[in-house]
């Protein structure tokens, strides 16, 4: 990883090269524990099925960890949103009274068992399929949307050694699998045989495809700088510290920061979250393309949405926030997968915070933001990254010039485009109101 060494050129102190540092730091027991546990379980089985068990264990782990993560994301979202609005949030559901048990644990558990109550409710609800619906596609749409959003987890490096599938073209795979969920959304709208579902699905597609572009364009600078598509290599490229405390995460470079902001906005839109939750704006529409879905299939769409959000947050952590790397050298004793999950939770909490703050955009504002603001800015950011790569050999005084120019390339267009975009809208004058 030559690039990581290049980006650490600023450091006057003799920091070891990041690759060497990563290799040198000994893997603690906690770091190796998940893998050793898996290998131990696999070795219990006969040799011919070991490869199958190896992958099945990985799949089951992803399903279990991120299934639970989804469950607690929903309750965290409800409680955080409530707190952001000076409410309490769900705090009632305790444990059910089981007749086979002689005692009843009566504590409400702060409402933490709410997602399980919701799951039971969703499963026991009636599953209605419209008479005129395309039965097969209507059934397949929720299955496919969950499947594809789960597939994106396969290439995320959750820890130093924990990556389900080590692909060279991991980023490409991630966006291919992530974009396939859009197909499922249109399947849902089309197969319902409901014109409102179909219109909503088309509108959702318009949004998702619009934001697919800035999302991918915001990632291109990373690929340009690290010259790899492998998520593992990208994380390794961000290792090391300048002066021993400034991490080399890409978010701390001008082009990386701009890319991260664009990525955040596009990820919000890609995962249908407020303020871009037009496809199923629950306060305005019935349910958009999910109008004809009920019960567990409806819950599956929501599950897929949260999986997509988690996967995109994980990708954001991987690409911009240093992946599983600790922010400071002396914090490296904490296992890498905990750092990854911690950063992931921070991202999700930020998304919830944004949801509790911002208003929903109109469809024209939404597409204008994507095509007139984010896409040009992302394209400029690619040029910025190219400049960054070309100037890596500059000497120390010129490094300040390099940072200044790089920052100017994103900040000046941001301010100018912001003024131009908001000039025709602000200050607003209302015809019938003072």
């Amino acid at each position, binding site marked *: 990883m030559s690039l990581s060494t290049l980006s650490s050129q600023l450091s006057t102190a003799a920091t070891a090269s990041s690759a060497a540092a990563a290799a040198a730091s000994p893997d603690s027991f906690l770091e190796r524990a998940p893998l050793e546990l898996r290998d131990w379980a696999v070795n219990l089985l006969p040799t011919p099925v070991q490869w199958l068990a190896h992958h099945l264990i990985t799949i089951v782990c992803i399903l279990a960890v991120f299934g639970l993560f989804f469950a607690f994301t929903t309750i965290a979202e409800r409680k*955080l949103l409530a*707190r*952001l*609005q*000076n*409410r*309490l949030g769900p705090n009632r559901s305790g444990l059910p009274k089981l007749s086979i048990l002689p005692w009843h644990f009566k504590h409400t558990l702060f409402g933490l068992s709410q997602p399980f109550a919701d799951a039971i409710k969703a499963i026991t609800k009636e599953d209605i399929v419209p008479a005129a619906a395309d039965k097969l596609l209507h059934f397949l749409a929720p299955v496919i949307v969950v499947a594809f959003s789960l597939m994106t987890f396969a290439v995320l490096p959750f820890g130093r050694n924990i990556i389900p599938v080590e692909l060279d073209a991991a980023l490409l795979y991630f966006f291919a699998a992530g974009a396939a969920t859009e197909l499922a959304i249109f399947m849902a709208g089309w197969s319902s045989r409901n014109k409102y579902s179909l219109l909503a699905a088309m509108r959702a597609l318009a949004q998702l495809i619009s934001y697919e572009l800035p999302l991918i364009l915001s990632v291109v600078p990373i690929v340009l700088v690290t010259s790899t598509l492998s998520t593992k290599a990208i994380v390794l490229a961000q290792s090391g510290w300048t002066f021993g405390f400034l991490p080399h995460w890409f978010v701390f470079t001008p082009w990386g920061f701009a890319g991260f902001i664009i990525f955040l906005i596009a990820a919000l839109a890609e995962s249908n979250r407020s303020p871009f939750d037009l496809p199923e704006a629950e306060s305005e529409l019935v349910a958009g393309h999910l109008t004809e879905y009920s019960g567990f299939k409806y819950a599956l769409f929501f599950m897929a949405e949260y999986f997509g959000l988690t996967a995109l947050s994980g990708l954001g952590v991987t690409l911009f926030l240093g992946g599983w790397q600790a922010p400071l050298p002396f914090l490296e004793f904490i296992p890498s997968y905990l750092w990854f999950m911690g950063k992931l939770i921070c991202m999700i909490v930020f998304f919830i*915070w*944004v949801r*509790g*703050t*911002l208003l929903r955009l109109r469809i024209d504002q939404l597409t204008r933001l994507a095509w007139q603001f984010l896409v040009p800015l992302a394209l400029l950011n690619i040029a910025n990254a190219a400049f960054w790569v070309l100037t890596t050999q500059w000497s120390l005084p010129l490094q300040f010039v390099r940072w200044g120019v790089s920052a100017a390339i994103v900040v000046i267009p*941001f*301010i100018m*485009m*912001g*003024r131009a*975009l*908001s000039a025709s809208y602000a200050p607003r004058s209302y015809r019938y109101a003072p």
Partner: protein
Amino acid sequence: MLGSGIINGLIVTAKNFVGSYHDPKRMVTVEYPEQKTVLPENYRNFPFLITENATDPMGTLRCVACQICEKECPPQCIIIEKSKDKKPDANGKMQIYPAIFGIDTSVCMSCQICVEVCPFDAIKMDKVFEIAATNRFEGLFLTREQLAKPNSYYHEIHPVEAAEVDERLTAERKAAEEKAKAAAAAKAAAAAAKPAVPVTVAGGSLPGDRPGQMLGLQSANNSADPGLSRASATPPGPGSAPPATKTPTPEA
């Protein structure tokens, strides 16, 4: 700059988030079964029967089973059956009492008309609202025993109104006593003047006399004046219908 509004908004919600943990004034939620808001004094729903004495609720009901509320009730949720015998009321006067008094709270609309028409201040509006039941018939149909609540309870839930009612009742009792005394004095005088003539004055012994003067309802009920009486309060109405329908028959 573009985006500054977003950051300001994020700061506002962050303040909400932090404040919600240490500033109880921000929180508007009342956690209902554990915490309850104080109901305003004028809050009222579902009637109840007032008893004078809490230790003997059935013996001291103010209700005399006059059935006015039963007739006036718009959704007809009250059912009353008069007793065959008489029992002394709180004042020691012999009165008819309700052998059955039931209110179907699943039908009652809390319109308070029964309270307004009651000449005895025997039925008043309650403040209960947690009367959910698992059985519509046994749970929501309130009997005489469930409805009877002491006057002290009435003072508790509607203090101002109850004080007014008590004041009026004592004034009326005093007036009735004075009238009875005057009547007795007159009787004695009359007896002294004409000892040979037998006494026929009934005085205030009729049960409907005192409240009839107060509200004028009893007299309307008795006089059956077609201009004044309402359909529900005129028993002679349907009784006079058959002759009216018979009059055209000779012409045909």
